[in-house]
C-alpha cells in the first residue's frame, strides 16, 4: 500500500554487521591524499625556508663583522663600505607617506562604503573601481607616479636637480598603491563588526558618526590595524614603481639625517632599490652585501607582517573566547 518499498539490508545478522563495521578500514587513498596535501604545504614552507636560510647564510659575513657600519653607511660603490642607511631612510619616509595618506583616506573610504553608502550607481562604481585598483600591477602605479607626481609636481615639491624624482613623488606613488588594499581590508574589518553592536548604538539614539566612532571603529580597530600593516609591509617591499619614479641607484648626495624633513624635496632611494642595485653589481663580494640588505628589508617587512598577523590572531582568539 505504502510508497515505501524498503531496501533495508534484510540480511543483517549480527555477524555480518559486525564484520562490516569492525573492518577498521583506513583507506589507502584517504591516507595518501592526506599526505600529498601535507607535502604540498610543507613544500611551500620549505622552499621559502631555504630562501631565508640561503639569504641569511650569504649575509652572515657582513652582518657579523660590520653590522653597525652597514646600517650607518649609504649606498656605496665599494662592497666593503656599502651600507643601507639611505635605503632605510627612504623606506622610512615612504612608510610615513603611506601611513599619513593612505591610512586615513583608506579608512575613511572604507567607513563611507560600509556605513554610509547606500546602494547607488556611485557606490557600485567606487566599489568595483577599488577592487580593480587592487589588482593593477605595481609597475603601472609607477607610470602614474612618473607622469603625475614626477612630471606635474616637479615645481612645487622638488628641489633643483631632483627633476621631480623626489621622496614626495616616491611616497605619494606608494601611498596611492597601497590605498586600495587599505580600503578593502578596512572595509572587511568594519563589515565584521556585529550588526548587534551598531543596533545597540542606534537604539539609544546615537547618530551614525557617534556609532562609528564609539563602537564600530574600536571594535574594528584590530582588523583595520592588521590590514593596514599588511599593506604597509607590501608597500615597503615594492621596487618596480620606484624604478619608474626614478629612485637613485648611483650615489645619493643627500646626507640629511634620518628624520630631516628637507629630504622630502630631494632625490631618494629605498631598500628594495638598493637591493636591486647591489644584486646587479658585478663581483661575488656584492652577494653578501645584497643578502645583508635583504635580511634587513625582510626584518622590516616580515616584522610588520608578523605583528599584523599575530595581532589579528590574538584578537580573533579573544573574540572567540568571549
Amino acid at each position: 500500500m505504502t510508497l515505501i518499498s524498503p531496501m533495508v539490508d534484510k540480511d543483517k545478522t549480527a555477524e555480518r554487521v559486525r564484520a562490516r563495521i569492525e573492518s577498521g578500514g583506513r583507506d589507502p587513498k584517504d591516507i595518501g591524499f592526506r599526505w600529498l596535501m601535507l607535502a604540498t604545504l610543507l613544500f611551500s614552507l620549505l622552499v621559502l625556508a631555504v630562501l631565508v636560510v640561503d639569504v641569511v647564510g650569504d649575509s652572515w659575513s657582513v652582518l657579523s663583522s660590520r653590522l653597525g657600519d652597514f646600517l650607518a653607511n649609504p649606498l656605496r660603490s665599494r662592497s666593503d663600505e656599502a651600507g643601507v642607511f639611505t635605503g632605510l631612510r627612504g623606506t622610512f619616509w615612504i612608510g610615513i607617506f603611506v601611513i599619513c595618506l593612505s591610512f586615513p583616506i583608506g579608512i575613511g573610504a572604507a567607513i563611507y562604503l560600509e556605513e554610509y553608502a547606500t546602494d547607488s550607481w556611485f557606490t557600485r562604481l567606487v566599489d568595483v573601481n577599488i577592487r580593480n585598483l587592487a589588482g593593477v600591477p605595481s609597475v603601472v602605479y609607477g607610470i602614474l607616479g612618473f607622469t603625475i607626481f614626477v612630471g606635474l609636481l616637479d615645481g612645487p615639491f622638488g628641489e633643483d636637480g631632483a627633476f621631480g624624482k623626489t621622496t614626495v613623488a616616491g611616497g605619494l606613488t606608494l601611498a596611492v598603491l597601497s590605498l586600495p588594499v587599505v580600503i578593502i581590508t578596512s572595509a572587511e574589518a568594519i563589515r565584521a563588526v556585529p550588526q548587534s553592536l551598531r543596533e545597540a548604538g542606534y537604539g539609544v539614539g546615537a547618530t551614525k558618526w557617534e556609532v562609528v566612532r564609539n563602537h564600530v571603529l574600536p571594535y574594528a580597530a584590530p582588523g583595520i590595524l592588521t590590514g593596514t600593516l599588511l599593506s604597509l609591509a607590501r608597500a615597503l617591499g615594492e621596487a618596480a614603481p620606484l624604478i619608474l619614479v626614478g629612485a637613485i641607484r648611483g650615489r645619493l648626495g643627500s646626507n640629511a639625517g634620518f628624520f630631516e624633513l628637507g629630504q622630502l624635496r630631494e632625490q631618494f632611494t629605498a631598500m628594495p632599490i638598493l637591493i636591486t642595485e647591489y644584486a646587479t653589481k658585478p663581483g661575488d663580494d656584492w652577494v653578501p652585501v645584497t643578502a645583508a640588505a635583504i635580511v634587513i628589508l625582510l626584518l622590516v617587512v616580515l616584522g610588520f607582517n608578523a605583528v599584523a598577523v599575530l595581532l589579528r590572531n590574538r584578537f580573533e582568539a579573544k573574540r572567540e573566547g568571549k
Partner: protein
Amino acid sequence: MAAPVMPADPDLLAGNPKRRQKESIVKTVFAGAATTSLVISILIVGSLLWKAQSFVGDLISPPADALAETRDGMISLSNLWTEQWAPRFMQFDIKTLLVASVIVTVVAMAVAGPVGLGAAVYLSEYASPRVRRILKPILEVLAGIPSVVLGFFALRWIGPNIVQNLFDSAGNQSLLAAGLGVGLLTIPLVASISEDAMRSVPNALREASAGLGARKFTTSTRVVLPAAVSGLVAAFIVATSRAIGETMVVFLAAGGSGNSAQFTVNPLERGATMTAAMASQASGTDGTIVETAFNSLFFVGAVLFVITLTLNVIADRFVRRVRQQY
C-alpha cells in the same frame, strides 16, 4: 469613543540640528575619501593613454629622429609585430613581451596552482585548528616577502641550482627560472584565497557527506572542491593576474633587463616580459633617447593594464558567484 491623541509639540522629534550638521560634514569627508579612488583610476588611465596614444601616433606618422634609428627608414604600425622587442631600433614586437609574460605566468601557475591548492586543502580540510593556527600565519607572513628578494633568490639560487641542473641548455637566466620565482611568490596567494573559498563551503555539506559514510578524501574532492570551485577559479585568476604583473623577479632573473629581447617560445631562453621591458626602459635609456622609443613604455603599460583588468573583472565574477551561493 476613540481618544483622539492631540499631537504633542510638533518639534518633539525634530532632534538637535548641530548633531545633524556634524553628521553631514562627516559624511561628506568620508565620501570625499571614497572618491579619491576614482581620481586615482582616472589618473592611471589618463597617464597611460596620454603617452601611449602619442606612441601609436608616432608609429603612424613617424618623427625624423625615430626614423633615423631604424634600419630601413620605415616605421609603421607593423613595427608592433616583428620578431623582437628592441625599442632602440624601433622594434616593438608586442608578441615577444606577451609570449614571455605568458611563459612566465604558465610556469608560475604550474607551480603555484597545484602547490597552493594542495596547501589550502590541507589547511582547510585536514589541519587541526591548532596546526592551522600555526601554519596559516606563517604562510601569510611569507606572502609578504618582497619580490626583489625572490628575484635575487631566483637569480642566485633557482637559476643555477634548479634550472641549470635540470636542463643543460639553460643559461644562468631564463624565463623558466623567473617563472619558478614568480610561482613561489604566488603560492601563498593561491593558498590563502583557495583556503578562504573552501572554508566558505558550509560545514553542513561536509557533515552531509560524512553522514553518508564518505571518507575525508571523498568529502574533500567530491563535495568541498566542487562546491568551492568558483572561489578556486577566482584564486587562480587573481594569482595569474598577479603573476603577469610581477616585475622584479622577472627583471632580475629572466635575462631581459637590457631592454632588448628576442621572440621565443622556449622557457629555457632569456626573455623580457611586459613588466621587465617597462622596468628596463625606465631604468636605463642610454640608447633610447628618442621620445618615441621611450613612450613604448606607456604603450606596454596600457596593454598590461587592460590584460590585468580583464582578469580581475573575470575573477570578481567568480567571487561574486561564491557570495551568492552561500
